[in-house]
């Protein structure tokens, strides 16, 4: 491709205490080019783009933008020079409305009324309908992303950075987003697209830079490579897909009928009439875009949210009105998504975190006194069985990397011999090798006769592990269907198609 060069990154290195996030990274992006930055979790993609956006300064190396030295000291400077970024997390304010959120990301926002009109105009133009006066907390994940995109577009960026944009979208919404991005590219805006999803990159991007452990391992043209080739470059080893031992489906172990609960989370989604059953040996996969009731479903199953007794049954026993302790006794364990502060107490040791949920089923208390020696043995067992990299069981949970802590927490729940296991986002933020081993252990437990519910936003993961498949959409669960034979289109429709697209627009 012979595009004039827009951004050149040369020999960038950035180290944090104990980790080298980026080491001698170089690549360049042409005007209007869609450039992929591909790599696993922890490969250094986020640090790299934070440097381009001025949030973090490189230790060494240079960047040039249209031939001039580019050293943004803060995001405002980057924005002024035409670099905009759409974040994966953490850059919207739920209690503020769309226009206010957009204004906060601009240097010199026009008066609110004028801004609202411009938001409407831009959202029309790019087929991303959005009402400027709505509270962001009430928007779906896809709509929130539109807020971020429009915030960027209003500033006429030359380079738009998108950090894992499709992880919160339905397949239909992904299509719409890609159309918008191609339109932008044809108008001359370059896009730096960060992802670990290979098929997306193959269909969208012109060039790709592949990072592994902070280093550039390859540059390629994605259309000319197979997904498998890129995956091996990204991971550095051949991955094996989990194998499953098909056991015969047993009797129903978990039954949920017409479960409705109010969300305790501000701007959360209440559950509305959720019903399903899971048999022993079966894995039920529950898909859905973030914020459609996944957290609430986990709370309602773990016992943190209560309902009428017969709404939730474990092995026929009504536990709907019981708390987490009684449900564990009855044979149900749960693993929430948020590792830091929900599934684990970050400042407590691994031993204490092992006691957090295992105390009941492993019999670690006597007359209310904690058997710390026994708890420590259990923690050590988990560390050994799940290959958790840690100096020992006494370090604080927060000292572990996300992937290692997740392995520890998965082990904690999976090793309690429970007959019902509920997991929300089992491999969120975990590298490919660890993710594969976690999925394998889930399948192993199912093979041993446990009923498993896996809630995830990663469709590939669900298709890989689940026997039956359902979707949470606005707090409602679709009827579970056998996973075999489902097409992406069908799944997309189950997920509610494209949210908030009722307003007519030119691409739909």
């Amino acid at each position, binding site marked *: 491709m012979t595009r004039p060069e827009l951004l050149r990154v040369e020999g960038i290195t950035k180290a944090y205490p104990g980790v080298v996030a980026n080491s001698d990274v170089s690549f360049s992006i042409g005007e209007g080019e869609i450039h992929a930055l591909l790599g696993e979790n922890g490969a250094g993609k986020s640090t790299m783009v934070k440097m381009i956006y001025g949030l973090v300064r490189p230790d060494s190396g240079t960047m040039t933008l249209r031939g001039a030295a580019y050293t943004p*000291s803060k995001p405002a400077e980057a924005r002024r020079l035409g670099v905009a970024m759409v974040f994966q997390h953490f850059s919207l304010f739920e209690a503020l409305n769309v226009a206010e959120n957009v204004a906060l990301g601009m240097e010199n926002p026009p008066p609110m009324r004028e801004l609202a009109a411009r938001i409407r105009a831009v959202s029309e133009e790019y087929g991303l309908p959005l009402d400027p006066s709505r509270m962001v907390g009430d928007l779906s994940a896809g709509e929130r992303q539109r807020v971020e995109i429009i915030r960027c577009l209003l500033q006429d960026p030359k380079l738009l950075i998108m950090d894992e944009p499709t992880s919160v979208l339905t397949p239909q919404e992904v299509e719409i987003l890609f159309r918008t991005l191609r339109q932008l590219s044809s108008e001359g805006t370059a896009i730096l697209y960060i992802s670990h999803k290979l098929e997306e990159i193959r269909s969208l991007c012109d060039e790709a830079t592949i990072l592994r452990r902070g280093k550039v391992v390859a540059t390629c043209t994605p259309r000319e490579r197979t997904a498998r080739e890129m995956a091996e470059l990204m991971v550095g080893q051949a991955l094996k897909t989990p194998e499953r031992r098909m056991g015969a489906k047993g009797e129903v172990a978990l039954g949920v009928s017409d479960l409705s609960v109010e969300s305790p989370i501000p701007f959360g989604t209440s559950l509305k009439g959720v019903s399903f059953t899971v048999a022993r040996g079966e894995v039920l996969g529950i898909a859905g875009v973030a914020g459609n009731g996944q957290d609430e479903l986990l709370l309602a199953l773990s016992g943190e949210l209560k309902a009428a007794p017969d709404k939730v049954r474990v092995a026929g026993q009504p536990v709907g009105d019981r708390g*987490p302790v009684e449900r564990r006794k009855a044979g149900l364990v749960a693993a929430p998504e948020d590792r830091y502060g929900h599934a684990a107490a970050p400042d407590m040791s691994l031993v204490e975190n092992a006691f957090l949920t295992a105390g009941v089923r492993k019999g670690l208390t006597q007359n209310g006194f904690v058997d710390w020696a026994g708890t420590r043995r259990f923690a050590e067992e988990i560390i050994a069985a799940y290959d958790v990299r840690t100096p020992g069981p006494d370090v604080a949970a927060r000292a572990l990397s996300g992937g290692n802590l997740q392995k520890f927490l998965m082990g904690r729940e999976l090793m309690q011999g429970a007959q019902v296991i509920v997991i929300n986002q089992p491999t969120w933020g975990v590298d490919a090798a660890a993710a594969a081993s976690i999925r394998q252990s889930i399948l192993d437990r199912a093979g041993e006769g446990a009923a498993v519910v896996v809630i995830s936003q990663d469709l590939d993961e669900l298709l890989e592990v689940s026997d039956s498949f359902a979707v949470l959409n606005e707090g409602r669960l679709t009827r579970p269907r056998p996973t075999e034979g489902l097409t992406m289109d069908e799944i997309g429709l189950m997920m509610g198609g494209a949210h908030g697209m009722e307003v007519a627009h030119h691409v739909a």
Partner: protein
Amino acid sequence: MLRLEKRPTPSRFWLYATPPAAVILTMVAGGILFAAMGKNPFEVIRTIFWDPVFGEFAFYLRGQLLVKAGPLILIAIGLALGFRAGIWNIGAEGQYIMGAIFGASVGLAVFPTESRWIFPVMVVAGAFGGWVWAMIPAILKTRFNTNEILVSLMLVYVAQTILAKASTGFLKNPEGMGFPGSRNFSSYPAAKNAFLYEPLGLHWGGVAALVTAVLAYILLTRHQAGFQIRLAGQAPRAARFHGVNPARLVVLCMGISGALAGLAGLFEVTGPAGQISIDFNTGYGFTAIIVAFLGRLNPLGIVLAGFLMALTYVGGEMAATQLGLPAAAIQVFQGMLLFFLLAVDVLTNYRFRLAVGAH
């Protein structure tokens, strides 16, 4: 430029080193303050920290240490349990007053009956008084989600008004020739909190404080309830996931801290103070907050912190009579101690790094 950086694991060294470091910094800053007031800083510091233990009048003052430390420790342990769980009872002063009034009322109601059951019943009544006063913010919090900090504090002012009414009205000594204040318990043996061993200043309050410290330590480190308290404070959502009922925890922690503050009030009014009077309370309920933090919210640490704080009281009085140091200076000194402690505390979880090039 210096930059803060979070430690992967809390520093064990700084966990124990911060209180002494804070004390030393406070002595330096306090010395400057005393010098600014025209006193010899070394003399003042010596009078406060050295003389009560090793000086001329130490034989008497050493006993005073436990007398002052007892209530501080008792109240601070209760507060620490709550603070650990993220429950902020800062109205201990009110619970302390109400404990004293409840307990004293029982004793005065049966005056001048002599029975060995009177004092134990008064102790129970004292704990009950403090418990009741703490239950008001606790129940308002669990039922209506009302802020316990503000309610427990407002109730201090209410308790003070009730105390004024008690000493000039319903508990007033009928033989007191019109002076405010109740009968003096020192002349009522059955209700008196006498010294068990005077040279050490040991009375039942001191015994209760030390026993409570040991029990609380065991609770926090070995018992499931202690685990739940720590968990609820550090990660409230993880606590709910573990199976903690937040409302029950509020009632438990507020109840314990209220009852302990009430006990402290009862032991004080029947012992060192001697009678219900309009100002028998000397702010122990507030100072105990400093003691709780200085002791790192750890029961054994609180015992040490209680003695240190008692030292500033006893030594402060010495400095007041011998060197003319205003009593308020000691209050400032105590406040500074808490500031420095909070400031150096950062080193437990963070370290300072010289940042090169980065922002």
